[in-house]
């Protein structure tokens, strides 16, 4: 099994090399954001206000972790359902977001925008929160602390496993199984 290593920030060139079904690992910095953080970021974009981090080239991980303990920077931190972020995603892709990590299908609108703006959607293993927490070596809150587990965090990750689920060439691992295409 060939294993590709991705080190954000990503370029369009790197994204183009990825194909749905590829096993990859990530190294370096990614940002967490889920429902409430996305809502705030998209509102900030609409209001012309600065974002907590520049999404250009970055990867967002859809997760709301458990708190860390016993000298571990983070608790259980698996992916949440990505489709809830679909309505906010295109605005971030327009600003150069290059990758998203989550679980489950994405909308047609998001997949088309991913093609247009050259971004990749990576699935990691939902429900493997304990396992994935040990791939995070550093975690710090960068914004929206009042949101509790929904705050935006910067994570430093090592050997973080993902499978390319939607690529920029029309590949979509979910497509052939799922009913009710939106």
């Amino acid at each position, binding site marked *: 099994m060939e294993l590709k290593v991705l080190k954000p920030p990503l370029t369009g060139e790197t994204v183009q090399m990825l194909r749905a079904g590829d096993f990859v690992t990530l190294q370096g910095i990614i940002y967490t954001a889920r429902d409430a953080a996305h809502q705030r970021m998209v509102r900030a974009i609409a209001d012309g206000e600065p974002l907590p981090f520049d999404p250009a080239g970055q990867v967002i991980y859809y997760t*709301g972790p*458990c708190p860390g303990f016993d000298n571990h920077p983070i608790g*259980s931190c698996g992916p949440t359902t990505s489709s809830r972020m679909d309505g906010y995603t295109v605005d971030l892709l327009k600003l150069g977001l290059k990758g998203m990590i989550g679980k489950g299908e994405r909308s047609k609108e998001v997949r088309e925008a991913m093609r247009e703006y050259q971004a990749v959607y990576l*699935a990691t293993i939902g429900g493997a*929160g304990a396992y994935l927490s040990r791939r995070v070596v550093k975690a710090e809150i960068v914004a929206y602390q009042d949101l*509790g*587990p929904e705050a935006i965090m910067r994570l430093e990750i090592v050997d973080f496993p993902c499978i390319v689920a939607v690529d920029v060439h029309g590949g979509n691992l*979910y497509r052939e199984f*799922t009913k009710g295409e939106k």
Partner: protein
Amino acid sequence: MRTIKSEDITQAVAKAAIEANTSLPADIYQALKEAYEQEKLPQARYILEVLLENADLAQKEGLALCQDTGLVVVNIIHGQEVYVQGDLQAAINEGIRLGYRQGHFRASVVKDPFTRDNTGDNTPCIIHSEIVPGDTMRITVFPKGAGSENMGRVAMLKPGAGVQGIIDFVVETAEIAGGSPCPPLVVGVGVGGNMEMASYLAKKALMKPLGMPGPHPELQQTLLDSINQTGIGPQGLGGRTTALGVNLEVYPTHIASLPVAVNLGCHSTRRCTIEL
């Protein structure tokens, strides 16, 4: 009459909340292991292997199996000869508060569905109770994640839809859900009663261990086989194992009704039952 102190209920619930969130039930672990042995697709095998490793690690280190430690459902089978000294509902919520703090679990409950401020301690839980003969109290703590809960459905079918109508609705629910509810699933199906009863039956079905005798074992097997024929597979990325099991609960219903509810559970369908 037997008296149970509310403080004892609090301590027992706290312990059960920690146990449920960190230790995968043996029947589910075994089912994941069997699924791993049967899968051929590399991504399906890989995912199942990681899930087994995740369960081992969570148990060894007292980590939450999944960061979504859920909106907790607490089911009480309350013997009518049991007298609870103190406030039972407050005692249960205090147990959840305590267990979630001690376990370092995520607070996932918002106070109001519109304003959406986090309560900060994962309370309140949802309490169901049934009064039965006897002098014991059985409490099941069932942390339920939203990824799977969000994909459940209820239908008020026409009686003429019959068994096929039920099968179609259940399979369609799994298909619409796809990878979002973290398959391989545990599927709780409630048939009969009225609208809220069907939903409650589906939840009760989900709380049962896999492979327990049910009212219609053949239908349960048909539902399981049909769901697994969809090919959705672990995490929706393809494979043979879309569901680990289907549990069915039924209740008498109206001459004009055929309510069906499907409550989906993820591969980490967690539960802990205590008896006082």
